[in-house]
C-alpha cells in the first residue's frame, strides 16, 4: 500500500474524477490508515511504498503491475499522467528481490487492476485502459492462459471494479461491465458467482480486498452481505469515500504480493 500524502484529484482520466471536487486529505489519511489496520487485522502483512509528490494515483497500488511469484511485470499506463509511476514501482519491487519483467512499449496494461487470476487462468480486461493485444504478450511472458474480457462501462473502467475472486469456486461479478462474450466467458469459468446488479456494482463492492475469509469493501449492500455471510465469509466495511472521488475503492489501494499464478 502507498499512503496518500500526495493524493488528490489533479487530473481527470475516468468519469469519477472531477478536479472541482476537493479531496479532504485528513479524511483520506484516516480512511487509508483504517483500511491498512483492517487488512492487517484480517491477517495480512502490509508493505509500504513511499509516496511521491506529483504522483497522486500512486496510492492505487493495484495498478502498479502484476506479481507472479518472484516476478513483477510493471504496468504500461494508458494515460501519460500515470506513466511516471512505473519507475517508482519497479524500483520498489527490484529492491525487494523481485525480478522485473517489462512489457513491450507498444502495449498498454494496468496490472492487477485489469488482471485477476481465477480457476487456473488470468482474466484480463481491455478497452478503456489495457489493450487486447497486451493479453497475448502477458500470456507468453507468464506462460499462462489469459481470458480477455471487454469492458463496456466507462465507470467500471478496470476489471477489478467488476470482478473479485473469493476462493477457487466463487467470485463477485458485475456482468453489466462486460460485453455479451465476456459474460459467457465468466459464466463458463466461475461455478458460483455472486452477481451484482448495477447499483451494487457502482458502489464498488466488487473492488474488495479478500484476506482469507475476510472480505473488505467500502460499503456493503445488504443483499451482498447476506450472500457472503451465507458462504462463510466475514464482511468488513472500510469506507474510502475520499478515494472514490478518484474512482478507486479498497482493492485499488492494495496490491497482493503473495500471488502465484502458474
Amino acid at each position, binding site marked *: 500500500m502507498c499512503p496518500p500524502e500526495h493524493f488528490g484529484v489533479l487530473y481527470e482520466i475516468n468519469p469519477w474524477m472531477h478536479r472541482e471536487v476537493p479531496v479532504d486529505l485528513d479524511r483520506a489519511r484516516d480512511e487509508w490508515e483504517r483500511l491498512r489496520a483492517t487488512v492487517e487485522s484480517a491477517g495480512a502483512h502490509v508493505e509500504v511504498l513511499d509516496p511521491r509528490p506529483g504522483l497522486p494515483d500512486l496510492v492505487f497500488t493495484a495498478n502498479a503491475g502484476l506479481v507472479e511469484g518472484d516476478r513483477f511485470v510493471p504496468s504500461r499506463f494508458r494515460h501519460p499522467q500515470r506513466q511516471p509511476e512505473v519507475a517508482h514501482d519497479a524500483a520498489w519491487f527490484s529492491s525487494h528481490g523481485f525480478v522485473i519483467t517489462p512489457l513491450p512499449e507498444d502495449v498498454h496494461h494496468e496490472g492487477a487492476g485489469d488482471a485477476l487470476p481465477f480457476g487456473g487462468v488470468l482474466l484480463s480486461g481491455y478497452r478503456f485502459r489495457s489493450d487486447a493485444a497486451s*493479453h497475448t504478450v502477458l500470456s507468453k511472458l507468464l506462460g499462462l492462459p489469459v*481470458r480477455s474480457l471487454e469492458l463496456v462501462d466507462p465507470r467500471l473502467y478496470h476489471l477489478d471494479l467488476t470482478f473479485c475472486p473469493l476462493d477457487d469456486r466463487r467470485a463477485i461479478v458485475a456482468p453489466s461491465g462486460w460485453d455479451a462474450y465476456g459474460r459467457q466467458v465468466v459464466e463458463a469459468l466461475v461455478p458460483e458467482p455472486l452477481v451484482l446488479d448495477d447499483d451494487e456494482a457502482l458502489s464498488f463492492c466488487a473492488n474488495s480486498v479478500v484476506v482469507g475469509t475476510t472480505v473488505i469493501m467500502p460499503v456493503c449492500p445488504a443483499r451482498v452481505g447476506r450472500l457472503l455471510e451465507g458462504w462463510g465469509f466475514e464482511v468488513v466495511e472500510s469506507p474510502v469515500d475520499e478515494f472514490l472521488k478518484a474512482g478507486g475503492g479498497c482493492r485499488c489501494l492494495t496490491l497482493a504480493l503473495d500471488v502465484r499464478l502458474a
Partner: protein
Amino acid sequence: MPVELVELEGHIIDSLIFAKVLDVILAAGGDYRVVDVEIGKTNTDVSTARLEVSAPDDAALASLLEALQVHGANRVTVVDATLEPCAGDGVLPAAFYSTTNLPTQVRVGERWVDVENAEMDCALVVDDDGRAHTVPMHRVRRGDRVVVGGDGVRVQAPERPRGANPFEFMASEVSSEKPKGLLVAEVAARIRRARAGGGRLLAVTGPAVVHTGAAPDLARLVREGWVDVLFSGNGFATHDIESNVLGTSLGVSIREGVPTEGGHANHLRVINEVRRRGSIAAAVEDGFVRGGVMYECVKRRVPFVLGGSLRDDGPLPDVITDVVAAADAMRALVPGVTVALMLASTLHAIATGNLLPAGVETYCVDINQAVVTKLADRGSHQALGIVTDVGLFLRELAAALCP
C-alpha cells in the same frame, strides 16, 4: 471489394474473441475469409487466426479495421511487391517470383491488384499502368518490371473440398472403381452448365481416341458445337484423317480391327497427301478429307493447335514443330476456357494442364491410372480423374450431349 489481412493471436477461442471478431465484421456489413487458424495445443499455448476482411468500400474497411484493432485483430503489414526490370529479353531477374496456377494478387501502389491470367511457372509482370499479368520466361522483354521475392504477392488457396461426391471433391481423386455411367452423366451436366454460363470447352486428345474407334463420337461433339478449342499432336490428327480416308488407324481397320495389307504405311501416305495440299483445311476444301474430328474442326472453324514432338512422322503441315511457339499458340486460346477434357493424352494433357488456371474444371480420362494421377498431381486442383476406356467414355458423353 477492398480486402485486408488481419491477424488475431492469443487465447482467442476460450475468450470468444475469435467469434466476436467475426461477428463484428458481419455486423459492420463486411465479410471475411478465414485464411488459417492455428489452435493452441495445450492450455497455455496461444491460438492464431488470420482473416481476410473485406468491406464495401475503402472507408468502410478502414473503420472496420479500426474497430477490430480494439479486440487485438491487427492488420498484417504488407508492403508493395518489389519490382525489378529484366536485364535482357527472355531472362528474368534472379529472384523472380514463380507463379502458381491459383488466383493471385499483387500489391502495387498500396492496393491489391488481380493478376489477369493465372498460369503456373511464370513470372509476374506489372505494367506501367499498374496491371499485373503472368508472362512465361521466354516472353519477357528487357525492361519489363518483374515481381521479385514473395513480398506483396498473395495467392488464394483453393477451397477446401467438402462432401463425399467426387464432383464436389474435384481434388485429384482418382479411382478405377467408380460407377462410370454416373460420372459421364455428371460430366455432361457440368459441361451444359459451363456452356450456359458462357464458358468454353477445350478438348485435348491423344491418338487412342482414334484407335479405340471414338473419333466419330468426338467429331459429333465438334459438329454439334460442344467443342470450342482442340489441342493435340501429329498422331491424333494423322490417324483421324487416315481413318476417314482409308478406314484404318495406324494400318488397323477401324471396322474389323485387323491389320490391313501394307497398312503400316497408310498414315505416311495420308500425311504426304495433306502435305501436298499444304494444310488440313486445304485437304478438307478439295475433298481429300470428308469426315472426322479435324474435318469438323475446319468446317466449324474450331481453332486447334497441333504441337509437334521428336518422334512425329511427316509431320502434317499444320503441326507447329517449334514447341515454344506451339505452347504460345495454345496459351493464346486458353482465355475463356472453363472446362477441359483431357482424352487419352499424356504429353499434351500435361502441357495443357500447365497452362490452365486452377479454376478450370478438368476431366482427365485415361485407361492408365498413372496418367490420370500424374496430371492431377501436377497442381491442377480442379482435376477429376476418370480411369476408363476413352472410346466408351466419348460414346456415352456424345449420347448424353447430342441426343
